Structure formats: structure tokens, C-alpha cells
């Protein structure tokens, strides 16, 4: 039973690897996940929170490959801890946003009428506000902290998923196979789950990859402003903000977290681009 589907996903992976941006993105994202997983099980060179007061502000060396910060904490370990932290925030918030957004978008598209108008106008209101600003509002109302950061990021990106899900639903629900399913008496939930949703999957997957990059960036931004992850927990945004005053004296404090953020965001974006190319039937065969 599973065979054809397995073969299909392998084929997809092969196509992705042949796509240049997809391949680079996949490598970066895999690296990021590996580092993040190592960080989350604390397989770091040093404990990320351990202070070595006698060895503060050390330049990169054999013991501390990325140097140490003001407290003598190992930057490399903190980068790994930060990867775990941003991974956690990104995965939870995007899962939340995807579930909620897809649900709302599908309902909206499938039921139509007043429900559609109501849901989509509310989404439009959220859309009208710049993402980081909206996240700032949510966090300042709820208070800083990692759970609230997850919630804020999810709030910001839910409307995008609602919109992305609604479009294909509108097309798919008019198609003959859906009408056929309805004619033989299939219930609405069955139609949505078995026939409509699978056909909206492609754009959603692309969107998920892009949303992961945004949420990574938003988490870093909020933490930089002191509203996301709280010190001493490692977060790339917190590390950047701590380095700000002394970047001139100790440039490695700024360099590594900045590079980590850049590569992480780049990875998810390239992966998203690659997936879009691969999954979009109109582009197929062009490359």
C-alpha cells in the first residue's frame, strides 16, 4: 500500500536535490536541525549557562572555538543552545499557526458565504499590521517569556496560512471528483479530509518552510528587544543584544550569532523556494 507514496516522496527528494536552491537550503536546514538537536540534549562543548569568570571575553581558541562572552560563557555552546531554542519556538509556533490557519482557511473556503466573509475579514485585520509590530503588541500584553513568544509568532502567521489554505479549497471544491463524492453521499468532513485537504498540501508545505524562517527571525528580533527568550537562556537575539555595546572590543560576540541567524533564515528560504519550484506543476519540466 505504502510503496507508491514512498516512491513518490523519494522522487520528490531527488528533484529537490537537483534544484540548486533546494539543495543548498536542504543542507543548511539539516545542519541547523542537527545542531539544534545536539543543543537541546545538551551535547555541547561546555554547558551553555556555565560561567568561567576568569576567562571572560576570550577570543576564539582551541578551548572556546567561538570565544567567550562577558560572563566567560562558551559562545559555541550558546549558539547550539540558541539553535535548540529557536528551533523549539519555530516548530511550536509554526505548528500552531499551520493548524489554526489551515482549519480557518478550509472552513472559510469550503463553507463560503457569511462564514467566509467573517473569517477572512478578521484575517485581513491581522494582515494589515506589520508582523513584528503585531508580535510586539501580543508579547507586551502577555509579558515576556518563551511560551508567550510562541503564541505571539503563531498569532502573526495564522492569517497567512488561512489565506494559503482557502485559495486551493475554493478551486478543489468545484472539481468533479468532489461533486462525485458528494453525489455518492459522502459527508462534509470526509470530503474535506480525504479529497480537499490533500490537494492544498503543496502550497502549505512551501508556506511552512517560509514561515519557519520568519518565525526564526521574529524570535531573534523579540529576544533582541528583551521581550522574547529571557537571559541567561541562550538565544541568538539575546546574544546579539548583549554583544551590542562591546562588539568593537569583542567582535566574535556579534559575528557568530549574526551568522547563525543569517544562515538559518537563508536555509529555510532557499528550501522554500526549492520546494515551490519542485511542487508547482506549471514550473515542472522547465528546469
Amino acid at each position, binding site marked *: 500500500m505504502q510503496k507508491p507514496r514512498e516512491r513518490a516522496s523519494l522522487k520528490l527528494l531527488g528533484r529537490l536535490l537537483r534544484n540548486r536552491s533546494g539543495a543548498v537550503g536542504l543542507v543548511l536546514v539539516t545542519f541547523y536541525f542537527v545542531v539544534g538537536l545536539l543543543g537541546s540534549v545538551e551535547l555541547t562543548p561546555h554547558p551553555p*549557562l556555565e*560561567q568561567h*569568570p576568569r576567562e*571572560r571575553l576570550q577570543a576564539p581558541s582551541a578551548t572556546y572555538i567561538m570565544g567567550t562572552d*562577558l*560572563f566567560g560563557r562558551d559562545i559555541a555552546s550558546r549558539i547550539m543552545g540558541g539553535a535548540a531554542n529557536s528551533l523549539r519556538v519555530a516548530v511550536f509556533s509554526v505548528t500552531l499557526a499551520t493548524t489554526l490557519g489551515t482549519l480557518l482557511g478550509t472552513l472559510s473556503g469550503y463553507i463560503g458565504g457569511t462564514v467566509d466573509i467573517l473569517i477572512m475579514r478578521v484575517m485581513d485585520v491581522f494582515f494589515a499590521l506589520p508582523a513584528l*509590530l503585531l508580535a*510586539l503588541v501580543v508579547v507586551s500584553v502577555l509579558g*515576556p517569556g518563551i511560551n508567550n513568544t510562541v503564541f505571539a509568532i503563531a498569532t502573526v502567521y495564522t492569517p497567512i496560512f488561512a489565506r494559503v489554505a482557502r485559495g486551493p479549497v475554493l478551486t478543489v471544491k468545484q472539481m468533479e471528483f468532489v461533486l462525485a463524492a458528494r453525489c455518492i453521499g459522502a459527508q462534509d468532513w470526509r470530503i474535506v479530509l480525504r479529497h480537499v485537504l490533500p490537494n492544498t498540501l503543496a502550497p502549505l508545505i512551501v508556506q511552512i518552510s517560509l514561515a519557519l524562517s520568519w518565525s526564526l527571525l521574529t524570535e531573534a528580533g523579540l529576544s533582541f528587544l*528583551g521581550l522574547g527568550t*529571557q*537571559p*541567561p537562556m541562550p538565544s541568538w537575539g539575546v546574544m546579539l543584544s*548583549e554583544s*551590542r*555595546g*562591546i562588539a*568593537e*572590543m569583542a567582535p566574535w560576540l556579534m559575528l557568530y550569532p549574526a551568522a547563525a541567524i543569517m544562515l538559518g533564515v537563508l536555509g529555510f528560504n532557499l528550501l522554500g523556494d526549492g520546494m515551490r519550484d519542485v511542487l508547482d506543476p506549471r514550473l515542472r519540466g522547465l528546469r
Partner: protein
Amino acid sequence: MLRKVLLILVLVLAVLSFVLPSVAQENVLIMARAADTTGLDPHTQTAFASFRLLELIYEPLVNLDADLNVIPALAESWAFNDDATQLTLNLRQSVTFHNGAAFTAEDVVATFERILNEETGAAARANYLSIASIETPDEYTVVFNLSQADVPLLAALATTNAAIADSADIESGAIATVANGTGPFKLDSWTPEETTMLSANEAWWGEGPFVSGIEIRIIPDETSILAALRAGTIDFALLNDPLVATLLEGDQTVVLNRVPAIAYHVLQLRAVDTEAPLGELAVRQAISCAIDRQEVLDTASLGEGTVTGPLTMAAYALDPSELFCYEKDLDRARELMAQAGYEEGFTITVIAANAEPPTALSEAQSIQAQLAEINITVEIESLELSVYVDRWLAGDFQAAVALNGGRPDPYTMYARYWQSTGNLNNVAGYIDETLDELMAAGRAETDPAARYEIFAQLQRHLAEMAPWVWLYAGYEYTAQQPYVEGFVPYPTDSLISLAQVTLNR
């Protein structure tokens, strides 16, 4: 976001000042700082940033010099009677306010009546409560009759919070919106969070000012101030962040002025908080013994400062080594924890303001790591400054990392915290009869040697009872171009010597 917009605005203004040559004047001192004044009423301001502007415009009766001695300002001379219950001040003659009105004893009376009126909400009111009545035998003499002996009153007068205002402004209420003082500079315009323009008061009684005016620019990010100094677009700057200031050490083109501050960094423990174990003397002592103060200083301020006891001013400071547990002693700390029955430790929450002082979060993290060694789990709650101040004033915290301002006199500095009647006693969260007695004795004592002994005893007692853990005193920083001559840095961070500055470009 707002900061960014402001920064852009300031940059645009800076560019405009190049484009429009008429705007840039030769003899105007251009100064930058990160925070703006929060208002123009000298009596109600509490922010350091407000004092730095208003002390150029307004003057108190007496001032402090760079060694914290009381020197004449609007009063030329003064004398206490023998039992320190009456203070007579002889006022400077032919002084005028910026609006041309003459300065007389009437203005002094109006000012102190306003400050003592509870409805005004004057910031320093508590320091003048001993004033029972004010007499004016003639136009240039003022006599304060005191309800009790109060030696610290004289030094307490040396603050912008007791600056003398025009009695007409006080009557009309204009004092809140118009800056009409007797000081060396007049306020020409104030655009909040942007620029403030001051011009020289030619009629000032003192020597100077030698510049034709001062343009104060608000640049919220201190690293940008640093860049502006290096680029030569500003002449003078106030710096708060020691990490930024240290970048200027050894700089060939910009001069860094550094003076030991009397403001102190402190870990406040609220002993009255019954939910936390902090009510136990042994626990507080254990915390004091477990913290290596030098390490906090090295970590948070790169060693820019000195470890200090409760009193920071040179005349009263004690050698920290003679105070209780100023050497880190983990064995003793663990013993004390065991004695209190907390070998297993406990959890406390420490509040710290987000960026004010810039070192607060680093201090909290260093303390967190050190207290973990005696099983105390510290949770850091970082708060926006305004939220932090509200909760601090309400006593709504277990422990706090704070930077508190110092005063030249120990009584004025601590009466508000350590007297059970003090207006900030609830913030200090600790009541102790010994402290009340020592405070009262120090207030009435006129002999300097005896006062020193009283306050030495106070410091030893405070360090041993450990309601707070005093950490260190940093430096006050200003930075300037080499052609700015004659500036004297003050331990109070006061800018009054800007009146004597010359520009030799």
C-alpha cells in the same frame, strides 16, 4: 522602533545643520546624551536626565564642588546656631531671573513653601521636613527655624530639587512649563526627545559662561553617540554604559572624563517579605557571603568601579574589608544556610530593569550563577524601566538589582530607606531600631569626627544585617573633543562646570 525613528530624525537634523550654515554657530557647544529630561519643573523631577538639563538653568541656595564640599550658590554665606536648630543664609545680591525679575528672599520663601506643600509632590520634600518656619529679616537674609537639630539640611539644599524659582512663576503655576531660573544658561527651545537649545545668560553672577550656547541632542543609542564623537559632529557627550565608555580608553582623538560615582549598584533583599526565606537573617548573610562583589563588577562593568560598602562618598566610605563577609566565603555561606534550615536551597525572583542601568541584567546573571553555588535558584524578571520603577516603589518584589543615587551626606542619602518613617522604607523592606537610633544621632551631631563614627557604625550594622547586598560604585563618564577646555567632572555627574568651558577649535 521609536528609538530608530528618533535616531533617524536626529541624523536628518545633523545633516540639515551642515546644509544650512546659518544654523551652526561657531561658539555653541554641541552635546549629546541618550535620555531627555522628563519635564521642566525642577522640584518634581526624579530622573538623572532631568537634573542634567535643569541644573544649567536653575540654581539652588548652595552647591557642591567636585569634592562634595558645600559651596556658595545663591546664598553667599550661612551659619547654624549652636544647637543646629536655626540656619541663617545670606543671599547673593543683584541676581536676576532669566525673565529680568530680581531675586530676593521672597523667592526663597515661595520656593520652600511650594516644596513643603504635600500637594506639589516635590521629590526632595522629606529632606526639609524639619523646617518649621521661614523668616526674612530683610530682602537678602533667610532664616530657617528648625523643629529639631538638623545638620544634614545644609547639604540637602544642594540639589536641583530645591532650586529657587521666581515667586511670580510659582503663584501663576507657570513653573511647570517655563524654565525661568537664575543659572548660567537660558532655555530657548525644547523639543522633547530631540533637541534642546540653551543660550548663555549674560547677566549671570558667576564667571562665564564662555560659550554662546549649548545644543543638546538626544541620541538614544550610546554606541551612536560614540560614533558621532569620533566623527567630530558633537563636542561633548554624556555616557552611562561603562562598556561603551571603556571603548574610548586610549583613544587618541576623543577625551574620556571619568570620576568615581557616589551612585551605587546594589542587590536589594526584602526582609519583610514573609513568603520568602529572606526574612531570615542567616539567609541574607549567606547571600552576602556567597557573592564575590569584585566578580560582579568585573563581569557587568568590566571592572570599571570599586567594591563599596553602604556609604560611597570619600569622606564617609569605609574600607570594604572591615565589613561583614566582603570576602567571598562559600563555607560560611553554606553553614549559614544550614543554620537557617535551607541546606536544600530555595527559589527567589530578582527584578532588573531592562536597560537602566545598562549593567543590570549582567549583574543579575552574575549573581544568579554565584548563588547557585549555595543552592539558591535565582529567577530573573527583566522589566521595562517604567514597570520596574512602579513595582519598586510599591515594594512589589522579593529582590531587585538597582542603581541608587548617592548624596553627599549620609543622613540625606539613607534616611528615606533606613528610618522606619522614611518615605522609601517600604522599598527597603527592613525595620531595625538600631538603624533608627543611629540615624537620629547622626542627624543631630555637629562634630564631624563623632558623625563619622556614628555613620561607620551604621555601615557595619547594615553590612551585618544584610537587608541589601551593596556591590560596587562605578564611574560617571563624559567624553569630549580635546578642544573643549575647562570641564570638571563631578562625582554627582553634575554638569554645572559647563559654564566655565571654552571652545578652542
